[in-house]
């Protein structure tokens, strides 16, 4: 094969590979937090305390990280659209850890009873009144 033919073939392959990779990146879905293994495990009280003491430091430590938070369930809410939220006690009656669950985890949330201790795995997004986790599931 002539040199120029080889060059064109390689270029075409590179363009196709680049395009396919770009298409893959463009359509890639957000990571499934349930499959993440690199997690930080701590108690609900400790997480709330960290944000109360220094929110900027806590943001750096925990936001956009996968956490496994253990604590006592204070409330469980499942709305008509099937969105399930579990609230964990922090020792402060005005604030809790708000855990928004994956929609297909609603079944496990419905079985939860306030007062029980659970381990929730989720993605920390920061603090408003509560420290908030989204994409949650019950930790195994």
């Amino acid at each position: 094969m002539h040199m120029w033919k080889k060059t064109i073939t390689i270029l075409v392959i590179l363009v196709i590979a680049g395009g396919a990779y770009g298409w893959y990146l463009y359509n890639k879905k957000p990571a499934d937090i349930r499959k993440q293994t690199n997690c930080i495990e701590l108690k609900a009280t400790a997480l709330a305390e960290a944000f109360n003491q220094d929110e900027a430091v806590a943001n750096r430590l925990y936001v956009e990280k996968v956490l496994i938070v253990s604590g006592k369930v204070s409330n469980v809410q499942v709305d008509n659209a099937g969105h399930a939220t579990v609230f964990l006690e922090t020792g402060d009656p005005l604030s809790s850890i708000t855990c928004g669950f994956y929609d297909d985890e609603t079944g496990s949330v419905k079985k939860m009873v306030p007062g029980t201790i659970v381990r929730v795995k989720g993605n920390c997004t920061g603090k408003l009144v509560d420290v908030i986790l989204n994409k949650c599931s019950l930790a195994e």
Partner: protein
Amino acid sequence: MKQYILLSAILLLAVTAFSQERYFTKNGHLSFEAGTDLEDINAVNNAATSVFDAGTGQIECAVLIKGFEFKRALMQEHFNENYMESDKYPKAIFKGKIINIDKVNFRKDGSYPLTIKGLLEIHGAKKEIETNGTMIIAGQAVSAHAEFTVLLADYNISVPGVVKDKISKTATVKINCIYSVLK
């Protein structure tokens, strides 16, 4: 006679106390759409925090920018890093008033139109907005929803020329909250 005056005073206090209850939610649903015919761009945040005072109509609502969930990872990354700069501006906050809160009868089931006016802060920029919404009273359940449009330029969110055909100049925001009494 004194007994009637005392009873009336107690009833008045009870009614006043009832009408001045505060309601809150920590898992309100807030979504937005900012796409065009070429691209679907929408995201949802299921952890909006909101509180309102049934007596004065004062209302506040806040969301964490990093709490918005997109269908595509790259879109979510660009939203946080390039457009909203969520490390620098982690929250969007609305503080305002339900102007016609006095028209809502919290003791009578029904759907009540709302007019809401206040200051919306996104991306570090503040802008006065006014919108309409609806409050639904069904027994003990109190829910509210509203929809409004924001101009991205008002909040210093710039869209690069290369994607200007894919991203709308405005975002349509929908919020839906189920409130509980703040005890």
